[in-house]
């Protein structure tokens, strides 16, 4: 247990608490970096001509990049005083990444359910880009150290 986390040890948040909020900026560079890190080299994530050729509104962020980024505020809130037990999302709307302006993803993490007996908390993520929700039923279940 680190000093920064010690003050919260043993206390559970309450349903409805917003535990974290953050905005992340994605650029085309972010997509190329994620392609290399993940091994997903589908060209719709870096080539405008390919994206447009299959009828997309533009180059899209990898759904898994959005998913992977959206949990980061929860990880920062959680620190080393617990662990993620489950994380799931539905991909409801693509994130179009403009070649110059990129795209922003805004995440709000709210406590959806508290299981005090198991020391488990379900965190519900609201994830939006350009004013539209991009992930549905985005939920993280975390177990807190007792």
């Amino acid at each position, binding site marked *: 247990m680190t000093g920064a986390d010690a003050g919260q040890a043993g206390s559970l948040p309450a349903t409805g608490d917003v535990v974290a909020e953050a905005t*992340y900026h994605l650029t085309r560079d*972010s997509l190329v*970096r*994620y392609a*290399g*890190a*993940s*091994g*997903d080299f589908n060209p719709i994530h870096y080539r405008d001509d390919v994206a447009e050729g*299959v009828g997309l509104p533009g180059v899209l962020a990898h*759904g*898994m*990049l959005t*998913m*992977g*980024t959206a*949990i*980061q505020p929860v*990880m*920062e809130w959680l*620190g*080393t005083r617990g*662990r*993620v*037990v*489950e*994380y*799931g*999302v*539905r*991909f409801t709307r693509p994130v179009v990444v403009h070649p110059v302006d990129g795209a922003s993803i805004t995440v709000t993490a709210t406590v959806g359910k508290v299981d005090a007996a198991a020391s488990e908390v379900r965190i519900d993520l609201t994830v939006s880009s350009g004013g539209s929700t991009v992930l549905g039923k985005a939920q*993280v279940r975390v177990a807190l150290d007792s």
Partner: protein
Amino acid sequence: MPVNPDLQGRVFAPVPPYLVGREKIREFATAVQAIAPVHFDPAIAVAAGYPDVVAPPTFPVVVQEATLAQLLAEPDAGIDFSRVVHGEQRFAYTRPVVAGDELTATLTVTSIKTLGGNAMVTAESAMTAADGSHVVTATSTLVVRGDS
């Protein structure tokens, strides 16, 4: 060719073990804008009780990919990759992935449903460590669009 309903319940051969590298974890963590020191600094990871740097939660998708490639390549599956959209993704963890893990992933097709003209294929990739213990199961639902 439509998606073959007989795929439901099919278990594939395990893919060759994936050795999780420290630099790969750092690279992946940077790509998803993770900043926690446990992803980057082995000493901090050890102090937190882990054997080495800890992978971000969605890292297992890197290992899962080879299993989904098996599914798409299955001759009788009837899954046209150009019509596939990633619908849902879930990870269920026994513990976080750490550098040094040698993960063996085994794919099972758990559900095939048709909805309108589309097929929904759900497949889970169970990943075990070298000692056979469960680490994480990654579950994907792929939407295969029908002829338009």
